[in-house]
């Protein structure tokens, strides 16, 4: 394993922010795994650190194929982590809506431009990120509909779901969108947690990456075949919004199968404790996304459901 400097951001009074890549194997730049860009994505940071640990062990066992190189970038925004900020720098900007960047513009676009130049040399880019919302979701691979997305390849991670999303204008500045081209494929992996560490979810994410690398002939590794992924379009998920705001008491978990009419959550009046709203399932299906904060606004997304999908 080699540690390489990918980008250095200078600050007058802080240590330089060094973005480092952990490189395994040599030769063809096959897969680049990119860690969190927001400073509250602790789970994603942990997954990448454990992936570096695992690949270090595997490299010693000689499992990386000849002429194949893998790079893991565990974190691209250490400044934010160290100050418990979500975004980058004094302007509080989201790195993952600033790609592909350049070498002449604002600090953030120089950072993304510098990183993108290195990442784009790889055939497969796998990013660990999370939703902005305070929520949990079922582990899945997400692809942006760019015209180059290859769902069959996304299936090779063996995660339960592959979700394809039509890009909004802001999505066109994500790493995933810009890495999805004629010559490279981009996958974003969403795991259940974000701000909490979840060991089971970490192991599942590492297995998914190793499974993909094995199936692409980048490593030689025996692993469980995983799932044959259920492929969804993002717009096919059924959104369940709250009608009332208050204290949120969820009754179901992500990944759980619910039946029509089943109670999914209560919204409680924060002053007198009365129940303001009972959220009940409007359809049979799987809970794909679930709000997991104690408070909730009116018309906030409480759940996203995979309609009429059974266990």
């Amino acid at each position: 394993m080699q540690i390489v400097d990918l980008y250095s951001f200078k600050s007058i009074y802080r240590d330089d922010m060094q973005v480092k890549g952990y490189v395994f194997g040599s030769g063809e730049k096959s897969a680049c795994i990119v860690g969190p860009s927001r400073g509250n994505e602790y789970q994603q940071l942990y997954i990448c650190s454990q992936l570096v640990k695992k690949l270090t062990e595997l490299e010693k066992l000689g499992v990386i194929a000849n002429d194949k190189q893998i790079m893991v970038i565990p974190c691209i925004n250490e400044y934010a982590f160290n100050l418990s900020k979500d975004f980058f720098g004094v302007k509080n900007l989201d790195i993952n809506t600033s790609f592909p960047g350049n070498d002449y513009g604002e600090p953030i676009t120089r950072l993304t431009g510098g990183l993108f130049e290195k990442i784009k040399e790889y055939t497969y880019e796998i990013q660990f990120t999370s939703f902005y919302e305070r929520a949990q979701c079922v582990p899945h691979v997400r692809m942006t509909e760019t015209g180059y997305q290859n769902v069959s390849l996304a299936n090779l991670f063996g995660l339960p779901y592959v979700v394809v999303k039509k890009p909004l204008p802001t999505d066109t500045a994500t790493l995933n969108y810009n890495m999805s081209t004629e010559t490279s494929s981009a996958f974003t992996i969403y795991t259940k947690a974000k701000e909490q560490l979840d060991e089971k979810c970490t192991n599942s994410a590492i297995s998914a990456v190793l499974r993909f690398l094995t199936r692409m002939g980048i490593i030689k590794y025996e692993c469980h075949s995983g799932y044959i992924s259920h492929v969804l379009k993002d717009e096919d998920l059924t959104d369940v919004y709250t009608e009332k705001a208050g204290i949120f008491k969820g009754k179901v978990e992500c990944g759980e199968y619910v039946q029509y009419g089943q109670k999914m959550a209560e919204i409680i009046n924060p002053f007198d404790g009365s129940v303001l709203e009972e959220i009940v399932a409007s359809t049979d299906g799987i809970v794909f996304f679930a709000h997991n904060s104690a408070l909730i606004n009116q018309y906030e997304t409480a759940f996203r459901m995979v309609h009429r999908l059974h266990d």
Partner: protein
Amino acid sequence: MKEIVLEYELPVGEKLTIYRNRIMPCSEINSPGRISIVSGTHGDELEGQYICYELARRIALEPENLMGIVDIYPAINPFGIDMASKNSPLFNRDLNRSFPGSSSGDLIDRVTSGVVESVLGSDLCLDIHASDIFVREIPQVRLSEDFADNLLPFAKLTNADMIWMNATATVHESTLAHSLNILGVPTMVIEMGQGHQINKPYGDQIVDGIFNIMCELGMWMGTRPRTQLPAISSDGSVEFIRSEKAGIFIPLTEHNHFVKAGDIIGEIFDPFIGEKLMDVVSEQPGLLFTQRIYPVVSEGDLLARILTGAF
């Protein structure tokens, strides 16, 4: 008349409410024109607060001269203003990257779509911004070349110092201005001053421009203010000067002054070791219309913009 544009519940007692002040003509008018003034999209940009006040105040002095409807939206991101935050603190997102929204979506979608729905039907909309806390700007209109044919005649009436065609992300998709222009409401972005500040002369200048536009639209029968014709520029005639060092910047020229090629317009130093790190030099002659105010800089930070070749 103070009207509620939209109102949503928050978890603990409070509501998110966006108001507008609708000022009607004193007498009944067939098919009156309508102009909308929107401000406070970014909570740290306060220049629009004075413009909203001054516009309403001057109309109230001679209401008999008003021949159309004036809708004033001083704060479409009220919590951002309360917390001096550019982003909406409710969503930790830039409201001006979330338009046009959806009336059946989640809360941020309903907020942005509610604003758009409310402004629809206007003959013209001005989206008033300030600069951020880092740079100071002269009063300027920013518009996309896509809509220039429609907007340029209005932009020339604003009494701004310049019109910048196809300038920045301010005019891009997902903004209020882009969404309204697509939906048929001619909308211009006005940018001036700096964040967290109010520059009264700039505000008076733009209010004169608004009355000038209202005269042109037949909505104001009072005295037409004397106004200037703004300089018109495209991206190609603007020189961007950025920091190449992390350090402390001090300007050595006045904002809104002409500079010659080779003029030293500022310097960056390291206070720790007492060393000047670089002179900041203009490469072309022109009007220094953007000037760095916030002294701490990193590589890539904007120090100045110079309008060249338009004089």
